[in-house]
């Protein structure tokens, strides 16, 4: 059986990656062997340290959760100095997620990553939890294209553009970033959601709204991967509510080349490797040898 997939020239040992913001190499490695992953995708990193939002930052909802972390991170310099050496010890691809409030901020981070061993970058133009930048780049095709164009000029690494589901027509955004040279697309980031505590009579999150993730969003994610697959030809990293190997298969049939496991890793810290095992079981049962076999078996209506 051959689980390998190639995305923008980078070959991953298998299609299972960790969704940005739900993985920390230090902590996750306490639960499983990181080398089992197809790729690590790290928490968003910005030019300077960001403090994130006040707490509560987490609200649980039916079949999911809402977060308003606000991209707390130590900034690219500390990241390169203190986190990268730890990440480089693993024998698995490294995709660094990049956050910014302006096009220039994205570019600064991206440039600083040129001289590192990162294999690929994932540009988050879809965070619903920061005031400037983030999601506003991801909801406007022109701005999404502009970020892509500038980042591509300044980066020597392949670039995945991470799209938001909070749009009317995700295919339009996908075409926009493809036309400016994005090497791939990852989606979905979180859906904007809110929960009110009827006992405390106030929004659960300090920030009121936050990003919805988990199995609750899977049908929206699968639909968007399906739509984007039919709109562009570049590779897709699909995510949103993947909890099992069969969920991963659903995304691959919809058109994803690789998948990311996010909220599942909060529900079960070893989820990424369990999902990989379940994917292998599914392939055995169906006599599939490669990822392509899964994709080819899909019969659209």
């Amino acid at each position, binding site marked *: 059986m051959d689980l390998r997939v190639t995305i923008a020239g980078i070959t991953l040992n298998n299609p299972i990656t960790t969704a940005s*913001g*739900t*993985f*920390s190499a*230090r*902590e*996750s490695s*306490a*639960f499983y062997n990181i080398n089992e992953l197809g790729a690590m995708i790290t*928490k968003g990193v910005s030019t300077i340290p960001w*403090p*994130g939002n*006040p*707490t*509560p*930052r*987490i*609200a*649980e909802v*039916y*079949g*999911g*959760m809402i*977060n308003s*972390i606000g991209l*707390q991170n130590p900034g690219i310099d500390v990241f390169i100095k203190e986190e990268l050496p730890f990440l480089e010890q693993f024998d698995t691809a490294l995709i660094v997620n990049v956050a910014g409030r302006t096009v220039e901020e994205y570019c600064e981070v991206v440039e600083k990553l040129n001289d590192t061993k990162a294999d690929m970058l994932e540009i988050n133009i879809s965070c619903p939890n920061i005031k400037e930048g983030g999601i506003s780049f991801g909801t406007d095709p022109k701005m999404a294209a502009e970020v892509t164009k500038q980042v591509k000029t300044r980066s020597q690494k392949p670039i995945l553009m991470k799209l938001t589901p909070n749009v009317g027509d995700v295919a339009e955004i996908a075409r926009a970033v493809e036309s400016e040279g994005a090497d791939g697309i990852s989606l979905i980031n979180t859906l904007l959601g809110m929960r009110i505590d009827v006992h405390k009579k106030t929004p659960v999150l300090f920030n009121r709204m936050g990003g919805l993730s*988990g*199995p609750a969003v899977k049908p929206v994610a699968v639909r968007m991967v399906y739509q984007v697959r039919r709109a562009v030809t570049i590779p897709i990293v699909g995510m949103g509510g993947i909890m099992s190997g069969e969920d991963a298969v659903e995304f691959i049939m919809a058109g994803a080349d690789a998948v990311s496991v996010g*909220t599942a*890793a*909060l*529900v*079960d*810290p*070893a989820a990424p490797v369990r999902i990989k095992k379940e994917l292998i079981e599914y392939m055995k049962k169906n006599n599939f040898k490669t990822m392509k076999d899964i994709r080819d078996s899909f019969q659209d209506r």
Partner: protein
Amino acid sequence: MMKKILNGRVVENIEIADKVYRLVVNAPEAVRDYVPGRFVNVYLKDKSLLLPRPVSISETNGENMALIYGVVGKGTSEIAQYDMGDRIRISTPLGNGYQIGSLLQKMKRDHAMQDGAKAGVIGLVGGGIGVPPLLGLAKAIRKMQREAADDDKSNLEFRNLKTVAVLGFQREPFLEEELKEYCDEVLIATDEGNFGFHGNVLDLIGQNQIHADGYFACGPKPMLKALSTYCRERQIPVQISMEERMGCGYGACVGCVCKTQEKTDEGIAVAAKKVCKDGPVFYGDEVIWDEE
């Protein structure tokens, strides 16, 4: 160190006070890593509730751990339904517990026990559902005292320690008897005044002139804040166990932060530390409270 999610067996699950349950879980693998103040994640069966529920370990023996929890919502209601013999999915212990040695060092450095002969007083301050972890802590301190008594040379300070537990409840105390076994004194305050002192633990500490040389505490944020202020004013060291809404509980999601400050060579470093991983126990003067 590898961590794990494992299936424990419910040994006992009984209501010890109004809506407060004591759950004993047989899980030898998880008991091994116990330090007072650490917690476990309880993973629920209800598939609409995905996130684990963090619950402090109250005490352990070689095989079992006791979790004492209040029934407040859907998750704890589910846990209250578990019967003897049922499986319960829990993580191995998480977080950093109380550091008894470190507090004693600070007490020595500060003002208490310069004279080895003078008895130092440790206050254990608990509020409501924050009381349970103090039991394991009191047991651990008592054990150290015993060991120090046996070994004449080392740990002089342990022999001269007195422990006073100051516990606040809304109306119904619990764990009082258990704590009496391990503490030299146990004082109770209730908000409604129906039992013990009428008022909160801070008032009780003032009233009884406890004058402890160091504190360990667990309870609601306002209590922790008031105690931290009290201790800062008196330059007494205090370790507090913080509570924050959690996502993962093991340090991956950055959901559960607490603003902290630390003196460094270059001045004061402000950080947003993870309660689940860097805590839940912090020194009171590390925590920045202004946001509350």
